[in-house]
């Protein structure tokens, strides 16, 4: 008899995207002088990618980045975020899914680099080199915060999510 695995492949990423949007909108830590703030959306992407692998990482990363930018009024970044966060989720999931702790940490490191590099290129392309450079520390802080939150979460979530 059919089980709902197929439907869940649509629904679970959808819920994780929603959660990510909520997390990013709720936990905003103001940082002076730059884009204004950092948020925790990378934590959600990391958790999705590490717990469910590259497919979910790609979808959750790309679409939550895309939606968040529209909702928060940064729609000039929408397409770029789709690519950058999608790639971030995909790579982290690819390297870190069901891997050892050490490998997961390096996955998050690479994922973080993708975000930093991605937004550096985006800002440089859209405006000029200066905003690109200014964004680097903010984005670094944001992915670092994301990684620091995501790691304990992935350990603690295994039991309740029955993974």
């Amino acid at each position: 008899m059919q089980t709902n695995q197929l439907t869940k492949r649509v629904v679970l990423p959808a819920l994780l995207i929603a959660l990510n949007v909520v997390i990013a909108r709720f936990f905003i830590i103001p940082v002076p002088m730059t884009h204004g703030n950092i948020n925790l959306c990378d934590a959600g992407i990391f958790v999705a990618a590490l717990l469910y692998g590259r497919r979910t990482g790609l979808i959750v990363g790309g679409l939550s980045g895309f939606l968040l930018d529209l909702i928060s009024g940064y729609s000039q970044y929408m397409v770029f975020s789709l690519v950058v966060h999608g790639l971030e989720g995909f790579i982290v999931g690819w390297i870190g899914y069901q891997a050892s702790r050490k490998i997961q940490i390096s996955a998050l490191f690479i994922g973080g680099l993708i975000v930093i590099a991605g937004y550096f290129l985006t800002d440089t392309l859209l405006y000029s080199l200066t905003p690109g450079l200014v964004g680097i520390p903010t984005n670094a802080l944001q992915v670092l915060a994301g990684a620091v939150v995501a790691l304990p979460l992935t350990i603690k979530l295994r039991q309740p999510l029955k993974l």
Partner: protein
Amino acid sequence: HRLDPRSKLLLSFYYIGIIFLANNWQTYLVLFLFTILAVRLSEIKMSFFIRGVRPLIWLILFTVLLQVFFTRGGTTYWSWGPIVLSQFGIVNGIYIFMRFVLIIFMSTLLTLTTPPLSLADAIEAILKPLRVVHFPVYEVALMLSIALRFVPTLMDETEKIMNAQRARGVDFGEGNLFQQMRAVVPLLIPLFVSSFNRAEDLATAMEARGYQGGEGRSKYRVLVWHAIDSWSVVGFAILTVILIWLRA
């Protein structure tokens, strides 16, 4: 406002593309006038657009100042060590300022006039051709629409769990960055668990209602392409031609 979400989305992206065409004062002026026209047509108050610029104001000023003081060329008005106030510098500073403002205005316009939900429809329509290469267009659109439907639900839930943990002595938004991040763990775990449980329930409910994947489904929502959409496309085409003609 009245535009079809498909044209709004595509034209906004296109706009960001043609901003790169601007490279002298004539082209920037044309783009500026065009943007102001678009803003006027949207009937949204100017203050909303100014508000969109405000969080970025320091970054903009910083960038502009760097451009102004570190660009050489043309007449030099003033200099002090490596810092130069030159004709090119001032012109470049104005251009970069214009670019920021134009992009932010257009992005604010898209955000304010596009309900996120219509976005899911627009994306489904725009990506439809990709079905040929087996890209799951319906699934992506469904994911977006389910995600949007659950954002308010999870917002409420976040608030509720936050209150429950505050009542148990957690301080949110206090202390240093590390303490703040520790405080979110008791909140994020229940949220992930709840999202997961909701996904289980929702998947079951959807199958009970006959969902068996994107194929063979019909659509309740339809997008209507009006004459105004066609006119907007024509407008953008004319703009492109003018820009190319005026380019230095």
